[in-house]
């Protein structure tokens, strides 16, 4: 029941949630996360973002994280959609949705998957600002978030 997609075209998070709800019938709690291209970064105004994946490593890594989430939490459905290619501010980069009987599992699993996607997922990201193009590597904060999970589960 996992739905994992890498897309090179724009997608709507709201539509993804509508479809997920249909698949998650019977759940009591659905959490969604949408990551969007921000119009500003430390380097200034962002005019474009390029994301590169390395198939099939990107897909197998995400599938393994999804499997890990299912092992840790009792989920009735799970969805991960990730954009690659050229994007502009406001575009959805990533959408994660989790469904469970109770809200704690849904919240924690979505949080866990996002930490994976922000630090370990196999993507490279290039930001375009008036100052030029810059490859972005993870923030220290992202690594700290990810470490929260290292002692949970087995």
């Amino acid at each position: 029941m996992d739905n994992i997609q890498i897309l090179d075209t724009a997608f709507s998070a709201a539509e993804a949630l509508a479809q997920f709800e249909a698949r998650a019938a019977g759940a009591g709690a659905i959490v969604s996360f949408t990551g969007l291209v921000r119009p500003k970064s430390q380097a200034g105004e962002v005019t474009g973002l390029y994301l590169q994946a390395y198939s099939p490593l990107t897909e197998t890594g995400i599938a393994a994280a999804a499997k890990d989430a299912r092992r840790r939490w009792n989920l009735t459905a799970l969805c991960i959609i990730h954009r690659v290619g050229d994007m502009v501010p406001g575009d959805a980069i990533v959408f994660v949705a989790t469904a469970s009987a109770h809200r704690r599992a849904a919240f924690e699993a979505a949080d866990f998957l996002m930490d994976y996607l922000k630090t370990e997922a196999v993507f490279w990201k290039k930001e375009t600002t008036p100052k030029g193009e810059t490859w972005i590597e993870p923030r220290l904060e992202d690594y700290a978030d990810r470490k929260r999970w290292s002692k949970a589960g087995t």
Partner: protein
Amino acid sequence: MVEILYFGRLMDVMGCSQERIALPDSVRDTDGLRRWLDAERILSGALLEPTVRIAVNDAIVPEPFAVSDGDSIAFLPPVGGG
């Protein structure tokens, strides 16, 4: 011949995302490949950084890892996440 893939900022450093190269006999593993290619292209260490990982035939490998003709070898800078 091996196929070499460059990702992220290494695409810019190398000026391409992919190339085919005939490995010299002296290059038998990933350590040898990093050193030889970095020297050959006068990169001053861009391929030697420990944060740059290597995948051989689409699997990240513990290094040094043997490489030989027909392999697909990818240089992976730290991933930036989504």
